[in-house]
């Protein structure tokens, strides 16, 4: 790897160096600083201060009407699916951040190199995993169980939910465990109707649990966070702190301790290991703007740069004791890549809701969720696929009012939009992708590099027939629910999303009970290098079908407790 020769050594040794400032990195910073440790948080991207978020921007305020400059997306950020005109600075530029794939097998990699990472624009859905997920192999025999049980992580889920602020109901479903919630957001009329439709078909349907404040606690208010006001502009960044992100919660809490140093624009190229012991002693950094190289040192290194960036970093950290990458003695590093799949969508309309008066809650960005209902037990066992899926649904349109569905202009056009805007309903699948060794990432074998000369990943991933059979079942079930709810189905989508598109890429540095088959132990600690912890989505053994962020934060919190204990014991 090419780096500048003039290396500036920084002698300070932090208790912990944390790579990444998103859901996991921010949580690690908070937990460790509150335990009295000094931490250095290295973020590859810039800092965008919340006062510069575009939460209140309207498309009509922009000369580009919310579409951005002509061809901007295709020319600069073609893989950044969810980036919009007002949020594009939250995302990387694909021009600078290559990765390769096999021809004809795309992987959509959405990345946020910015202080706060993807928490600045995440979907906020906060579902716990259950033992149906952690012990999935015990249910159906596929792959491996996680090395932890729900009972072990449950207290951390509790703490994370109370910290970040999750609104939702306690619904009493064993396979979708309840947590510590703030009051739920109300369902819209259409969502109530869809819920009845799901119930008629024998499926549960529950209010989405989202990391958005509805009854801010004293601690949350102290950090400047306020309740959600339903503006529906979460993806542009939330300036009132209703939506959890690292900036307004975990990093802010860490800052209050005075123990955190945050260094933006710091691209970690690799970990530095002691040539005698093989233990990590620090990290090599390239300044994003100047390309200047430097090194930073810590007793513990926490790798939390997001699933694939973390694995890329470990693969790039080859050393005498770690010839195939740091933590790769098992050969599992890079393997078992998964994403959820979607793309199986049904859209329709409740005509009876047209013309209803708008209410403030129409702007909320949460919806109704149909939790997994396949392969829960013998009664729901499917003969042609393992695991299951849920449906994310919504009814009503919120900000923008779905005006794009109609042609026209002027006052008649506005009347049409207002008349119909409460009537749309949609269901989209969020489904489990089986973990398989043959879905993997590696350092590009032909030497492709990024703009800083750091070797990039080549991604190999495709869906199996298990996912395809599940998709067929999901399409039928979604239509059944929609019809039972009394909606007219207007369109269906029957192609599964390209892997990565759901932005739930997980695995590639999996936890496990056996050092020969996994990268991390049950505490997110590298089997091969005990002072390195990987705490983001890379650690996942399987994807389940629920959104992963709350689990990432719970695992991080748990790993930090372990780090403190091990430090006290003198093991780190």
């Amino acid at each position, binding site marked *: 790897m090419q780096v500048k020769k003039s290396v500036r050594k920084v002698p300070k040794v932090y208790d912990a160096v944390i790579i990444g400032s998103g859901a996991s990195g921010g949580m690690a910073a908070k937990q460790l600083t509150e335990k009295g440790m000094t931490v250095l948080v290295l973020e590859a991207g810039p800092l965008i201060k919340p006062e510069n978020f575009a939460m209140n921007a309207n498309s009509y305020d922009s000369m580009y009407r919310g579409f951005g400059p002509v061809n901007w997306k295709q020319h600069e950020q073609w893989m950044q699916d969810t980036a919009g005109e007002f949020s594009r600075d939250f995302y990387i530029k694909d021009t600078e951040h290559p990765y390769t794939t096999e021809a004809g097998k795309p992987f959509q990699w959405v990345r946020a190199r910015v202080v706060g990472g993807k928490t600045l624009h995440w979907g906020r859905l906060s579902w716990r995993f259950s033992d149906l997920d952690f012990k999935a192999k015990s249910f159906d025999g596929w792959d491996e169980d996680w090395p932890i049980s729900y009972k072990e992580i449950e207290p951390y889920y509790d703490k994370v939910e109370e910290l970040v602020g999750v609104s939702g109901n306690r619904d009493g479903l064993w396979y979708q465990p309840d947590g510590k919630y703030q009051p739920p957001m109300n369902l819209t009329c259409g969502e109530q109707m869809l819920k009845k439709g799901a119930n008629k078909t024998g499926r549960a349907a529950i209010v989405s649990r989202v990391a958005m404040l509805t009854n801010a606690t004293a601690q949350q208010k102290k950090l400047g966070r306020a309740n959600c006001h339903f503006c529906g502009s979460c993806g542009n960044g939330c300036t009132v702190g209703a939506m959890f992100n690292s900036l307004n919660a975990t990093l802010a809490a860490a800052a209050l301790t005075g123990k955190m140093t945050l260094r933006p624009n710091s691209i970690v190229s690799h970990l530095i290991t002691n040539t005698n012991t093989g233990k990590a002693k620090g990290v090599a950094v390239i300044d994003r703007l100047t390309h200047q190289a430097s090194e930073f040192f810590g007793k513990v290194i926490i790798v939390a740069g997001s699933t694939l960036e973390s694995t890329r970093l470990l693969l790039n950290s080859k050393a005498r004791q770690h010839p195939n990458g740091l933590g790769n003695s098992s050969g599992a590093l890079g393997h078992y890549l998964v994403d959820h799949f979607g793309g199986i969508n049904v859209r329709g309309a409740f005509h009876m809701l047209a013309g209803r008066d708008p209410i403030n809650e129409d702007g909320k960005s949460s919806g109704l969720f149909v939790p997994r209902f396949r392969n829960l037990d013998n009664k729901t066992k499917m003969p042609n696929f393992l695991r299951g899926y849920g449906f994310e649904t919504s009814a009503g349109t919120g900000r923008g009012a779905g005006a794009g569905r109609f042609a026209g202009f002027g006052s008649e056009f506005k009347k049409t939009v207002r008349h119909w805007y409460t009537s749309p309903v949609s269901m989209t699948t969020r489904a489990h992708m089986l973990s398989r060794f043959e879905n993997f990432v590696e350092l590009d074998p032909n030497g*492709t590099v990024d703009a800083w000369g750091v070797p990039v990943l080549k991604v190999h991933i495709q869906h199996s027939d298990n996912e395809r059979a599940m998709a067929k079942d999901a399409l039928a079930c979604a239509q059944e629910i929609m019809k039972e709810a009394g909606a007219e189905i207007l369109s269906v989508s029957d192609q599964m999303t390209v892997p990565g598109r759901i932005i739930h890429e997980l695995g590639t540095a999996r936890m496990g009970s056996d050092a020969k088959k996994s990268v991390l132990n049950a505490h997110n600690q590298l089997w091969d290098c005990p002072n390195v912890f990987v705490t983001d989505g890379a650690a996942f053994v399987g994807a389940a079908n629920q959104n992963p962020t709350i689990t990432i934060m719970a695992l991080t919190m748990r790993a930090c407790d372990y780090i403190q204990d091990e430090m006290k014991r003198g093991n780190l």
Partner: protein
Amino acid sequence: MFFTQKKTVATKARKLHSIHGLLNGRSFVGKLEPTHEFVYAMQSAAVVNGKLELTGKVSVKISSGKTATAENVKATLRGVQSAMNTAQRPASFKLTVPSAFAADAQDGLPLTELTNTRSGLGVIYLALSALDGKALGVPFDLSSVQLNGRMTAIDQTARDLQWLFNQTAAALEANQPSVAEPYVSEIDRTLRG
């Protein structure tokens, strides 16, 4: 404020690892940093040692308005990034040539979008032969620069090349040079104009 961000500015020449260029007709057009316009005009294509190798001319426009060129610049395919859109077969290209992609399954189960026969090509990553930055009038070390060629398909020639490069990359990746051969010939014919 707990942030320690400081604004820093590059002050001296440095090694360029990669250049981004958009496919426009038969050329990749981009910039060496924000200041110097760059064009790689592809002129021919061949398979060398199992890899696609392009030959072309590099032009760099410097701030004085002058253009410096380097002839016979080789560009070897390092890798590709499959796209989030579909490439279209050139109307003039014969259907009798076997596709580099396997046919989609016909078993009634859903397929993954934009995959295999329905795929496109987003980027080709090319290793350029060594360039002399000084001779090109730019303060950069261009001894081992990578060209990130973005396939935006903004005109018909670019659209045709996108499809042909996609087929070629798939065939060569599968170590099937005979399958790649007609596609490479067509690329070569297209580049020679």
